[in-house]
């Protein structure tokens, strides 16, 4: 008896340890396979494979990128993004992902200052970028931007009564400055006569509401800068620097000698001279303003019209960006003593308030070498500089419009455009008859056949 018991115990212990060892081996095997695994995308449209551009970017990543995605749990958008980012993580170990449900974690969501579902924040070192409604193109572009080592320098022109970035009063641009710094940019004020030319380090030049005269040399420098890969944001007020108006005219952008009046803005509780914009053209700067059916309005206190001449400089193309409503007017009369609209003198809306222009000067050498190393010039002109002042920066979409414009201007390389994977159009039309046929076949006939087969075998056994 004792002998038997001992044997059982010994056997039991053996089994126990053997089981532990097997578990250990399996855990190791699985751990290893989870780290070094292969994924094969067998879908027709290669929906889960990344484009070669993304793969290149991922291969070149040097620093770690922290991706924080704010999605509600169990939503199809979350799953879609999870599929997307899984592909990224598979290609690069430097991507680290964290999902946060804004509903369950309002504190963290507030910390990141995230306001919309579907926002993804990328952080690498000191750079930060955020995107909404992510797709492969946006995500990869954000990745490129966030992994760049140098910060962008945004230069603000000074010396002609422009809005000051260190001015914290209502007409100052300190809020804009802080927001830009928050995005990882460096801000600089420049005086052209002192600098001699627009500094090399400037990624973007901002002329915010210049009112006084510019020296001819200054105008020339700005013009040259625009020609050679320049990125400039002109915020022009009614009766701003006449030299700049001339400069822009030469580029095919005309500033109206008018004031935009908008009755619609009264409904918003604003002044008649503060037109509200609810119509945006399709452009990266404004695409976030018309999401999902609702439009975010922007307000432009005391603005003039901006129109495009029929001919632009060779190699450049321009489009309108923002327009006021149909109930607005480009008023050319006097303001003292009330508004007196004259349909013959004044132009009826919609009036264009902002335009974008981009292009490149044709360089024969470049063409011959077949090396497009220079980037294109980009200009954005708004007929108002007050919308981004401290007083109005946080009004509705104003701040975002300013920041998006700077972002677009600051982009180093051409926007990588990745064509979205197209699912093949599924053809599946069933007629009533076909539907019925399928029903009877799968739900009735087929199971019946099985029952028959079983019955036959059972019956044969009984027979025997």
């Amino acid at each position, binding site marked *: 008896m004792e002998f038997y018991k001992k044997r059982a115990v010994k056997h039991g212990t053996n089994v126990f340890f053997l089981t532990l060892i097997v578990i250990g081996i399996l855990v190791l095997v*699985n751990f290893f396979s989870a780290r070094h695994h292969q994924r094969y995308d*067998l879908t027709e449209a290669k929906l889960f494979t990344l484009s070669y551009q993304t793969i290149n970017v991922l291969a070149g990543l040097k620093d770690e990128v922290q991706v924080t995605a704010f999605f509600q749990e169990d939503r199809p958008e979350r799953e879609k993004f999870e599929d997307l980012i899984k592909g990224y993580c598979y290609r690069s170990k430097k991507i680290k992902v964290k999902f946060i449900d804004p509903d369950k974690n309002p504190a963290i969501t507030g910390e990141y200052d995230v306001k919309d579902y579907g926002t993804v924040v990328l952080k690498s070192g000191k750079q930060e970028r955020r995107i909404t409604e992510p797709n492969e193109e946006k995500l990869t572009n954000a990745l490129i931007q966030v992994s760049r080592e140098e910060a962008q320098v945004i230069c603000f022109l000074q010396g002609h009564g422009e809005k000051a970035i260190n001015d914290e009063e209502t007409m100052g641009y300190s809020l804009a400055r802080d927001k830009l710094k928050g995005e990882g940019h460096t801000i600089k004020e420049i005086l052209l006569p002192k600098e001699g030319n627009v500094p090399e380090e400037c990624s973007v030049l901002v002329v915010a509401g210049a009112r006084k005269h510019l020296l001819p040399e200054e105008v020339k420098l700005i013009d040259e800068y625009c020609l050679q890969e320049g990125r400039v944001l002109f915020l022009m007020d009614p009766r701003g620097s006449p030299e700049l108006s001339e400069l822009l005219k030469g580029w095919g952008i005309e500033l109206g000698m008018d004031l935009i009046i908008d009755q619609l803005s009264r409904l918003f509780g604003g002044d008649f001279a503060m037109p509200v914009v609810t119509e945006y053209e399709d452009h990266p700067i404004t695409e976030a303003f018309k999401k999902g059916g609702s439009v975010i309005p922007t307000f432009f206190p005391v603005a003039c019209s901006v129109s495009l001449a029929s001919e632009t400089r060779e190699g450049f193309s321009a489009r309108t960006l923002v327009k006021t409503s149909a109930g607005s007017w480009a008023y050319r009369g006097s303001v003292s003593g009330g508004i007196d609209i004259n349909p013959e003198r004044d132009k009826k809306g919609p009036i264009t308030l902002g335009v974008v222009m981009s292009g490149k000067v044709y360089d024969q050498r470049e063409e011959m070498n077949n090396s497009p190393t220079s980037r294109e010039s980009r200009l954005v002109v708004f007929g108002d500089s007050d919308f981004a002042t401290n007083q109005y920066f946080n009004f509705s979409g104003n701040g975002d419009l300013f920041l998006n414009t700077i972002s677009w201007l600051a982009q180093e390389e051409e926007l990588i455009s990745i064509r979205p994977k*197209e699912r093949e159009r*599924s053809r599946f039309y*069933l007629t009533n008859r076909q539907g019925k046929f399928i029903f009877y076949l799968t739900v009735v006939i087929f*199971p019946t056949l099985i029952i028959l087969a079983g019955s036959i075998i059972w019956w044969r056994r009984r027979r025997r």
Partner: protein
Amino acid sequence: MSNILTITVRELKAHFVSPIAYVVFVVFFIISGWLFFNIISYYNLQTLQYITQPAMLESLDLIEMVLRPHSYNLSIILLLMIPVLTMRLWAEEKRTGTAELLLTSPVRLTEIVLGKYLSSLILLLVMMILAFQYPLILIIFGNPGPGPIITTYLGLFLMGAAFLSVGFFASSLTENQIVAAIIGFGALLFFWVISWASHTVGATFGEVLSYLSLMEHFEDLSKGILDTKDIVFFLSFIFFGLFLTHRVIESHGWR
């Protein structure tokens, strides 16, 4: 090797003699057929509704909207049916007393284990082949891509094989078939819901939990992605189930 096959054939014959396999098949196909029909009816309705909106029409993908949901339905039905199929494998031997006969025969225990498992695997394979009627209908009337169909059914088969190994193990624990089936249900449900907690517990523990979930590893396969780590997981899972069963049966010999 031939020993294994002999056992497999013996078990298969036993399967087909008992009414259980038939009932399981019939129920499985009635329910899955009914669910499939529902899904394609709804899909058809949506196609007709969106015929004037080509943008929406593009999002109606046969794989995403028909095959995937249907495959999840199938996996649930499998989860419920498989413990019933496996409950008799070991429990019956013990009840009828043929267990001693088997264990004292010159056939090695490993061969017995493999042979029995193989028989239930073949049964599963037959079920999968018959369930191929659904994608077949899709192919006849529509144009789904072949890749996702292959991975989905591979996933269903592997997952089913994993389910089988759990039911297999459950059956070895008791001589009462009903108890075996219930233990099987319980264990499979456990592995199904284990990932539900993964979101609330800490990050690493959560990852471990969701890795252990059988459904997790089916996900990529149901979309058309063949990932080696999913295959490795299923094979490890099956191996472990069989290993444990082997231990349990072996230890019976010492009691």
